[in-house]
């Protein structure tokens, strides 16, 4: 699943987000939405970005492509794409990257397409914006793209309007639109959440196949761990506007270093194993603007120490992944014991289950 991408070829880093901070100026002061996001996507790699609603996954995606809704804006940090810094580029320069080198897929295919134009028009419009093609060549490419994403009788469907397609078919069209100009990276923001479960697998299949064929990297934003486990090479777990764990899928799912990821993975049911109540993490993620001073997860963490409440942990090497957790620092109080967190969270899960039951 993780493939040779990480070790054998050492592919270049395509997207590198460094300490990205996004804020929202309001009348009652400045709200921090992202509190220093670090993540990177290598060429041809699928990075899954997971987290609860409000963790900042989508905002990260939007910030990368310069589509934050004002007044939200990037306060600090850097976004590097393909060796060049792209945050702070002019609107027009960013526009030329969007669609051409970074494709985007949004959540709801039913509303992503303009209802007043045929899909042929929307495809050729996008193709001709980014590629130097004549009308005929653009139309030919549009048909090829529709073919690739699995729309039957593609040539005859160019004149059809979005409302004449089903949801799954529309998301295929959206994928075709994202792939128009052969982008190096696709940012897919919850691409299957609005779809039927049976369609979800198909869409993920199409996305996966095309990206492998074209060598396109994907930043897959979702809260669906099933999709991540099946699709991604690496996972970045987000919590309260930060990436708190980053590692290969296998390691994060089976052996998470951060107590939050550990709890998150514990909440995935396994087929063939009898469980009573699924373990849950006590409490709720802090609201934007009310993130505690130290580790944002401290109030909910079964392993919490004074250090966690006082100071925010940076990313450090965990067991097999990197995690923003003091447990892996030499400053951790009971370093000597070197006990992993799994025992702790296990009891916590059982406790909360018992308390709720």
């Amino acid at each position, binding site marked *: 699943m993780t493939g040779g991408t990480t070790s054998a070829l050492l592919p270049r880093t395509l997207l590198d987000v460094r300490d990205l901070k996004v804020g929202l100026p309001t009348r009652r002061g400045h709200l921090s939405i992202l509190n220093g996001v670090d993540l990177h996507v290598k060429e041809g790699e699928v990075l899954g970005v997971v987290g609860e609603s409000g963790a900042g996954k989508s905002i990260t995606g939007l910030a990368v492509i310069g589509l934050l809704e004002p007044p939200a804006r990037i306060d600090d940090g850097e976004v590097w794409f393909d060796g060049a810094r792209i945050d702070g580029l002019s609107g027009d320069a960013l526009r030329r990257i969007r669609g051409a080198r970074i494709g985007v897929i949004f959540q709801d295919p039913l509303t992503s397409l303009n*209802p*007043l134009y045929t899909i042929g028009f929307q495809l050729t419009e996008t193709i001709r914006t980014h590629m130097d093609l004549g009308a005929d060549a653009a139309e030919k490419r549009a048909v090829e793209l529709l073919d690739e994403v699995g729309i039957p009788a593609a040539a005859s469907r160019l004149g059809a309007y979005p409302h004449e397609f089903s949801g799954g078919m529309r998301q295929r069209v959206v994928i075709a639109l994202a792939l128009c100009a052969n982008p190096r990276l696709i940012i897919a923001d919850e691409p299957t959440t609005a779809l039927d479960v049976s369609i979800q697998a198909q869409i993920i299949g199409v996305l996966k196949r095309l990206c492998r064929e074209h060598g396109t990297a994907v930043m897959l934003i979702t809260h669906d761990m099933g999709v991540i486990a099946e699709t991604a090479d690496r996972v970045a777990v987000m919590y309260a506007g930060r990436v708190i764990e980053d590692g290969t899928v296998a390691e994060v799912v089976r052996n998470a270093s951060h107590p939050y990821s550990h709890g998150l993975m514990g909440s995935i049911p396994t087929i063939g194993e009898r469980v009573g109540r699924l373990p849950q993490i006590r409490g709720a993620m802090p609201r934007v603007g009310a993130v505690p001073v130290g580790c944002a997860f401290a109030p909910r963490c079964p392993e919490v120490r004074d250090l966690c409440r006082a100071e925010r942990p940076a990313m450090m090497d965990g067991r097999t992944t990197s995690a923003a957790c003091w447990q892996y620092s030499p400053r951790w109080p009971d370093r000597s014991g070197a006990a992993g967190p799994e025992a702790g969270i296990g009891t916590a899960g059982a406790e909360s289950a018992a308390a709720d039951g």
Partner: protein
Amino acid sequence: MFSYLVNRVFQAIGVLLVVALLSFVIFNYVGDPINNMVGQEATLEDREELRERLGLNDSVLVQFLRFVGNAAEGEFGISYQFQRKVSDLILERMPATLELVFVSAIIALAAGIGLGVFTGLRRDSWLSRFVLTVSLVGVSLPTFVIGILLIYIFSVSLEWLPSFGRGDTVRIGDWDSGLLTGSGWLAIILPAITLGLFQLTIILRLVRAEMLEVLRTDYIKFARARGLSRRAVNFGHALKNTMVPVITIAGLQIGTLIAFSIITETVFQWPGMGLLFIQGVEFADVPIMGAYLLLAAIAFVAINLVVDLLYAAVDPRLRVSAQRGRGTA
């Protein structure tokens, strides 16, 4: 599509028949038409003879059918006041009104849509705020006050533009045009602005509200994410999506322009149908009033028909629903 059109035409005819009935009722029952026509000295016998000659002793239904038949041929009787055929009077005055309405509609649509898009896109700029504040004046001040204000500023104080009349006109066939002479253009500026200002404001505010709404939609976000140029996003994708409600309102408002050019024409002594109507009202000239009523209705109905057809042209989803509607109806 064709049967949809036929359906709409039948509806339009229905509306016109109802208005014709109203018009007929006014003509026959607001006062005694004979009294209005003959002088004080006419004898009872004369009156009775005239009544018979005009067919006023026939049954109401026959009279109504005759009225509709005449109206269909453009025949509305003879004006009491001018002693001339109403149809001739109206045809004489119609070019003035239609030219005025045409110019104000162009002003209202062009400036309304242009400023609406601008204020929608740059909603925080001071210029947008300024335009919106001024547009409040357009909504809240009555037409005659605006007209008089404009006359005071541009005719009386600055002496730039004429305060009344049409200027020189050129006759082309049956059409008296003021749009081919310099003085005609100078004369039409103030009344056209006065007449169109309210409509301009309505369209401006509607386009702005619709733009704000549409710019928030996912497909605009996605169009941006596809890297389309700002122009393609704002005008190709956003503006077109605001058009269905804008066409509705703009259509109704242009109908209003035709029907209610009365006030503007009075203020500027514009020799159009509205002025004719006001003169007709002053003299209880019922044939003119009835004809005007019917004409205004025709204008509204025709514009609404065009609006219905434009919907389908703009929005492909309505083409389908029109067909479905036909299937179930």
